[in-house]
């Protein structure tokens, strides 16, 4: 009896489900955005993201105080030395993880320029740029999205957690201004991150006959033969890959002066030590002016230049 009653009550619902579209009011589709603060927070008590400023489709949201910090994990900008230390740790842990996972990745843009100069991150850089292949991003999205990797690096006080977050818009091949970044490797303690972009086949250009045309969602264009086969080398002491025609890509992106100029962003390149030395004092910085003493005779190996102000 009770069973019969239950069946009677459930029957219409069942029929509806079996037949098809239920007459349930449409739930509005929420735009996708990065993982909510409460789900991923570490030490902060409130988020510093400002989602209202960004366009609604944008997935990743940077912090309110600086565009190279994730607002869910960072509350302030780091000073020069701390930032350098943590960025180094960031790239080292990223390379290590990708190597373990088996994802094909290589450094590009600013990080590649730092590699060219002295195999290290340029000291004034506040972010890192890497690329992955299409296969790799699919693999990461399917199996490693929102994973947290714990590392204890020598020199850092306690172990840190690094989160890999993949942007679901990575499946969209077309150029999108709001979702240029396909994934992020985020330091959950300081909020620093690495932007990961995917090198995709440029189907329209290939259809037009440009052989081997590749593109990235942030509007960069490359040729397959310039990137592949990748070269194995070292960066910040860790094995890394760089594109095949690394110097041509750098010249195309940054110009000849970026690869030869010894004075940049208040830093001087010391050829003997192969390091970028910061010009911290005002007395040194005035030498950078066009008519200052350092505008001539700059290849004379630091002897005429101020020694490390430490």
């Amino acid at each position, binding site marked *: 009896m009770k069973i019969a009653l239950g069946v009677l009550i459930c029957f219409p619902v069942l029929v509806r489900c079996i037949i098809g579209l239920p007459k349930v009011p449409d739930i509005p589709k929420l735009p996708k955005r990065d993982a909510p603060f409460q789900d991923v927070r570490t030490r902060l008590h409130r988020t510093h993201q400002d989602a209202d400023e960004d366009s609604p489709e944008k997935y990743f949201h940077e912090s309110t105080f600086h565009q190279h910090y994730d607002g869910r994990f960072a509350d302030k900008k780091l000073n020069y030395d701390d930032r350098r230390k943590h960025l180094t740790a960031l790239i080292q842990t990223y390379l290590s993880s990708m190597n373990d996972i088996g994802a094909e990745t290589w450094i590009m843009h600013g990080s590649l320029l730092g590699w060219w100069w002295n195999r290290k991150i340029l000291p004034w850089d506040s972010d890192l740029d890497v690329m992955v292949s299409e296969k790799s991003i699919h693999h990461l999205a399917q199996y490693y999205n929102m994973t947290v990797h714990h590392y204890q690096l020598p020199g850092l006080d306690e172990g840190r957690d690094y989160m890999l977050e993949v942007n679901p818009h990575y499946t969209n091949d077309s150029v999108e201004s709001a979702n240029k970044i396909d994934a992020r490797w985020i330091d959950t303690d300081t909020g620093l991150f690495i932007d990961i972009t995917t090198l995709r086949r440029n189907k329209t250009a290939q259809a037009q006959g440009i052989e081997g045309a590749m593109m990235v969602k942030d509007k960069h264009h490359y040729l397959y033969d310039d990137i592949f086969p990748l070269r194995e080398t070292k960066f910040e002491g860790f094995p890394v890959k760089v594109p095949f025609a690394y110097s041509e890509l750098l010249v195309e992106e940054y110009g000849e002066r970026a690869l030869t100029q010894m004075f940049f962003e208040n830093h001087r*390149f010391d050829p003997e030590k192969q390091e970028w030395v910061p010009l911290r004092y005002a007395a040194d910085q005035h030498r950078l002016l066009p008519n200052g003493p350092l505008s001539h005779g700059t290849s004379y*190996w630091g002897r005429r230049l101020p020694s490390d102000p430490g």
Partner: protein
Amino acid sequence: MPPQQEMEGQDDSEGRERSLSEWRTKLQTSLPKRPDWPGAPRDLPHVSPGQPYTSHDAYQPPRTLRHGDYTKQSAPLIDQVSNRWRGTEKASTVYVSEPEDHELRFCDLEDEGSCPNTIRDLVRSRRLRRMLAVFLVAAVMLYYGWKWYLQPRLQEEWSFKQGFLPARSNGTYGIARAGDFEGTAIQWLDSSLIPGGEADREGKRRLVFVGDIHGCKKELLHLLEKVGFDVKTDHLIATGDTVSKGPDNVGVLDELIRLKADSVRGNHEDRLLEAAKTILGTNLSPQSVAATSQGYAKDATLLKQLKPKHVRYLRDMPLMLRIPALPHASTARHQHKDRVAEDVIVVHAGVVPHVPLEKQDPYFVMNMRSIDDRTHLPSALRETKRGKSRPWMEIWNWYNDRLFRGRSLKGFHLYTTAEYEDEQASESQGWLGSLWDGLFGKGKAKMTPQIVVYGHDSKAGLQMHRWSKGLDSGCVAGGKLTALVLDASGKTEVVQVGCKNYKA
């Protein structure tokens, strides 16, 4: 003195009046004798009464009257006044003309000495005309000589030089670490193979340099036959790009291994070796062309055909091969430009002048075609985006010419501490010290010019200059395969064979 007393007496209380003429006669008769103190003028200035003192007279500085001094001028001045001045001509009347002729002062056509007349006379004179003609011709020659010959040469000289000067840029190529090279970067040729070396006292050996072979085995054999290649005395050196694009890549490698030939690594070998890391040793089916690119697909198929000995041969290719100066070759300054008597560097694409060989970026050494004017950064393109680039061998030849002529490299970029210290030491010496050094010193090691043998640029074809020899004549595209034969005396010979077009 009586006159003084006389003068004083004039004011005495007696007040005796004398007439003017009485005084005059008295004074004139009692003129003093010439004063005998030293420096006294011999002649008292002669001023006769009645004569005017005109501006033409010699200037007499005013003589101050000393106490007790008496001159003729003590006589009453009124006696010297006359009216003769009315009759004399003033000096200024010569120049002051009548009011009507005031405008034509220098241009008075009637006057013989005026400007137009003077000029007319001059112009008519033959001597001046000759002088003018010579002057004009000289001026024209100077102007055009400067404009057409000197100025372009100076400008070109400067445009070559500016890339070497620190003052023109804030840094230069060769300072940054640049890329890595897996394998031997710089290798010296085995000493037993050098023509005229220790193993070849009679100077019978030869070196045969060959341009980009690109798998054209038949043409290679034909060329070796034409050169008269003998394995016992000749040594083959290829400038890279021995494989890819052509019909028989494996065959070429086999031949090179058989002949124990040397080769430098070219950009295609570089690509093959990098791809080999992921393709070789795996059983995975190669990726499709759609997933990669045509070039990559071809490399993959080639790699599958290669045996381990071929891959080892490719890996053994150095980035640069260096050959020391031939012992028997003469280094006379007047020698023909086809003589090779200096060090030879063999690379695939090129090197940047003045930068130490260890600091050259391997990718650029295997790919460059031009150099940026200012920073000397190379580029694989013939013309960079910035537009201020030049074919690298032009700057190389200019630089080595300079070294050959012994001109100084003072002020050029420095790359090592040793060079810097040297320069500081010589600067602190001064000109006398350097003169002493030059005459009596032991003479520090000067940089010597070097010859570069390269390939890679098939579009430019055969490029034979004094200091650079480009041997890629585009064999695989139907051009020629070139060999440069060098014998023990430094003489060179270019031998070529035609090639079939395999690119189509």
